[in-house]
């Protein structure tokens, strides 16, 4: 008897497990393999959470999440992008964007439905699509297009089974962002073919070049978009696991139906902290300007080492090409770790078209960043 379900065993384990294991047994490692801020959650947010615990807020919340938090999120989305999502029924608080993403797919995907996603992308999109019974249809984006998804490439992949498009800009791992015009063209394709757009905008605040455009704010997209966002990146709150989905009430209600049975509610302490976080935009601005300095430092540093490096517009990753070294992404990452104790993520774990690239996070201190670049320089000299 096979114990593990086919649906699960067909998914490969994460390609970064190996690096994690090697790094864990080493001393003096500098990790550019991190996908989270190096800042600790701002104190006023932590303090609000502690205060809530002192006052005894330790229970379940409504399945939807605390109304105060949903109202604050609704206000924020309205202020930033002019879209109104009703805090009652239009917004669902989840245990991180990861949960929201899973719910979104499960709420709308029937077996065999196709979901278009652009690669390189966050590692969970494909597996989650498969778990939800859907078929991922990947569009490769390349450096020649600045890793931006083009509407015509989406259109080419559409079949009568296509149900949804997954968008994730600013992008992990490339740092690419899409202009409003590019997004509008994708919106037109979504309208023409009656598709849902799942827009993961977790890095929206970390935009350095141009302004972030919320996909829901585009013409006709309010109803069609499942907007996903959370607190992890902008407020340095990864461990709190608080995210949310906003969208039309029919879809959010369906997501809520799954959420109430599998998760019940997001942790109340995190929700309490998130309410305070929405009052802490100054802290976010401070962190963003520091990321921006490091971004420039790292891009210039990588280029000086002779690596060709695309200029990222958002998130906190650089995505240099290591093709000229003749090594695969994985070989490069493994040797760099073993020889110079620097962790980077092989681009190949983010999709086949990520081969030949490595993801280097600049969510590390300026000192670590400089040290890591020196080590990479030494490593490159040995090749």
């Amino acid at each position, binding site marked *: 008897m096979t114990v593990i379900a086919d649906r699960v065993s067909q998914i490969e384990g*994460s390609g*970064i497990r190996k*690096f*994690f294991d090697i*790094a*864990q047994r080493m001393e003096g*490692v500098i*990790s550019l*393999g*991190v*996908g*989270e801020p*190096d800042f*600790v959650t701002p104190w006023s947010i932590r303090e609000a959470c502690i205060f809530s615990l002192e006052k005894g807020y330790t229970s379940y919340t409504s399945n939807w999440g605390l109304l105060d938090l949903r109202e604050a999120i609704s206000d924020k989305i309205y202020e930033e992008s002019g879209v109104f999502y009703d805090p009652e029924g239009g917004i669902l608080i989840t245990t991180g964007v990861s949960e929201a993403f899973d719910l979104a797919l499960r709420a709308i995907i029937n077996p065999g439905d196709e979901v278009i996603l652009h690669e390189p992308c*966050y*590692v*969970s999109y494909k597996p989650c699509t498969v778990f939800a019974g859907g078929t991922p249809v990947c569009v490769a984006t390349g450096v020649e297009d600045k890793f931006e998804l083009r509407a015509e490439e989406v259109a080419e992949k559409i079949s009568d089974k296509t149900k949804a498009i997954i968008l994730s800009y600013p992008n*992990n791992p490339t740092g690419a962002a899409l202009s409003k015009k590019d997004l509008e063209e994708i919106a037109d394709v979504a309208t023409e073919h009656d598709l849902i757009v799942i827009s993961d905008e977790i890095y929206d605040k970390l935009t350095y070049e141009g302004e972030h455009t919320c996909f829901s704010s585009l013409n006709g997209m309010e109803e069609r978009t499942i907007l996903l966002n959370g607190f992890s990146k902008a407020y340095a709150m990864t461990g709190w696991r608080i995210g949310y989905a906003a969208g039309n009430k029919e879809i959010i209600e369906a997501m809520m139906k799954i959420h109430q049975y599998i998760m019940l509610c997001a942790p109340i302490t995190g929700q309490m902290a998130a309410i305070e976080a929405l009052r802490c935009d100054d802290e976010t601005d401070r962190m963003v*300007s*520091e990321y921006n*300095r*490091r971004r*420039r*430092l790292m891009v*210039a*540093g990588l280029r000086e080492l002779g690596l060709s490096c695309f200029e990222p517009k958002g998130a906190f990753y650089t995505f240099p090409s290591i093709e000229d070294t003749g090594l695969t992404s994985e070989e490069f990452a493994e040797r760099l770790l073993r020889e110079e104790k620097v*962790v980077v*993520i092989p681009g190949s*774990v983010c999709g086949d078209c990520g081969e030949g690239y490595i993801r280097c996070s600049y969510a590390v201190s*300026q000192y670590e960043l*400089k040290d890591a670049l020196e080590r990479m320089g030494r490593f490159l000299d040995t090749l």
Partner: protein
Amino acid sequence: MDSKEKEIIGILEENARLSDKEIARMAEMAEEEVKGIISKLESKGIIIKYKAVINHEKAGIDTVQALIDIKISPERSTGYDSVAVRISKYPEVQSVRLVSGEYDLSVLVLGKTMHEVAYFVAEKIAPLEQVRNTVTNFLLKSYKEYGEIYEAEAKGKRLAVSL
């Protein structure tokens, strides 16, 4: 001040040991331009000095500091300035600030021993003609100086690899 000057000040206030080249990269400016702006800021006295923030306790350097609250009778022509400037000139004095509230000046004095600090206040500050009254508050422990917390928060708790 223009935005380029502000950006450079922001970078230096965070880390003054960066090279001009690194600052140029962070600010997306030419190195020569950064050099020019910094020397202009220096010559204008906007950038006064570059110093390190040292945790003396950890370094095992025994010092005594006291915050002296001083009540002043201001002078007709120069107000608080002339006496504040006079007090500033002593090397033992680390900072001199005019404050609102019960007292007028808040002065930080550094010495090797409590005795030395107390003597300095009694001999040099208290006798000044404009000084009406002083209160000496010895510092017992520092938790944060110049915006830097002394006992840094847990670092290295992040996973080495996360996506």
